[in-house]
């Protein structure tokens, strides 16, 4: 299982959960598992079938866009971070 960190702006879509265990061997499979259980999440992180440009996904601290994108392998026990931009300095 992989731990996925959900940013505060997406927690409404996960019933308030900040970390969720999900399974999958690639980022795509992992996100499929996640969005299968929390369907409202899909529209928030995908745009036209690809990762939305305003959401970054990190596996082991590395941006998946610098790896194999959605096909980036996710090792068992690793941590995946979903990260949209935050504007606030207020």
């Amino acid at each position, binding site marked *: 299982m992989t731990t996925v960190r959900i940013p*505060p702006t997406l927690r409404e879509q996960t019933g308030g959960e*900040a970390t969720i265990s999900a399974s999958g061997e690639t980022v795509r499979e992992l996100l499929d598992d996640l969005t299968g259980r929390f369907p409202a999440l899909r529209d*928030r992180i995908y745009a036209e079938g690809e990762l939305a440009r*305003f959401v970054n996904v990190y596996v082991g601290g590395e941006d998946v866009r610098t790896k194999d994108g959605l096909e980036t392998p996710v090792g068992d026990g690793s941590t995946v*971070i979903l*990260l949209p*931009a935050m504007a606030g300095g207020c």
Partner: protein
Amino acid sequence: MCAESSRSTVARAAVAILIAVSTTDRTREITAQAAQAGGALLVDVRSDEERKVAHIPGSLHVPMSQVEARLPELVPDRTQPIVTYCAVGARSFRILPTIDALGYQDSVSMAGGIRAWQELGYSVESDSVLDAEKRERYSRHLLIPEVGEEGQGRLLETSMLLIGAGGLGSPSALYLAAAGVGRIGIVDDDVVDSSNLQRQVLHSTTGLGERKARSAKKALEDLNPDVEVVTYEERLTSENVDRILSEGWDLIVDGADNFPTRYLLNDASIWHDIPVVHGSIFRFEGQVTVFKPHEGPCYRCLFPQPPPPELAPSCAEGGVLGVLPGVIGSLQANEALKLALGIGEPAIGRLLLFDALAARLDEVKIPRDPSCPVCGDDPTITEYVDYVEFCQGR
């Protein structure tokens, strides 16, 4: 008990030896009055740091460890009368046998060192960039080898521009001013509202209704009169950004509260070649990184597009724990000071993620995007755009 008594025995023995040496060799010491009156060459054997603070005018500086190697070259005449001095007269006394061995025929130590000299009211010179008041104020910085007098002098010469005097700007402004950053600019067109005071520690109840830039200037100058505070009671826009950024800023601390300002600042900072210490917060979580133009990624490399407005609520809409901007703004001040001092590992190409509820600090890598429209190899954005429109996704 045993350790105590053996320690005091050793101390007594040391005192006894010192007394014995100074008694037997009193002929090798002269008073500060005699040193001042006589025509001997005064040789300061203290460290560079000590000499900078105060030294006797006309004295020669040869640190103790360099006497053997450098004195013959600096004072070739072995018959030249020499008076060594240090802080209180101990080191200058101990070095005499070394000077004797070099063949000098007339060397003595000034009893009581420069302290005795100063107590008699004789003049001293200082190479220090810091006066006595500053040395006292920044003494805890001066004690750190990585900062020291040189670093503190550098901070006092540094100019930092703060975008926003709100949640993030408050702690960073206070710590940067306290640290002695010589010139601090504040860009903020907002006024102090009572809902700000839960976290914006730069402002106070008596300042309600006042412009934040002005309220900040008062607080910072009160905290540290060494700091010049320049205020811009305006919102950063495409029209004023070039004027404001061209006023000599070494770095920018970004505590903006909206995406259009962040993208505008990003583009401007690249074109003006000024590093930006970025911070952002929401509820219990914050992000910090350093965008250094052409060395690391920029904000657009990290987030090429802002999220749609419904996915990016502000603190005014979603709230923020009062202490969170304190943590993130302080981390920004930390990065800003490191950059100004040229020490440590700045968070360039690394995004620090702080989760206050979990008490966890994560780090992710931010790669530089060669296809970035602003800092990439072949930029497609070369002038300011309509940032509000851009952030609405139009």
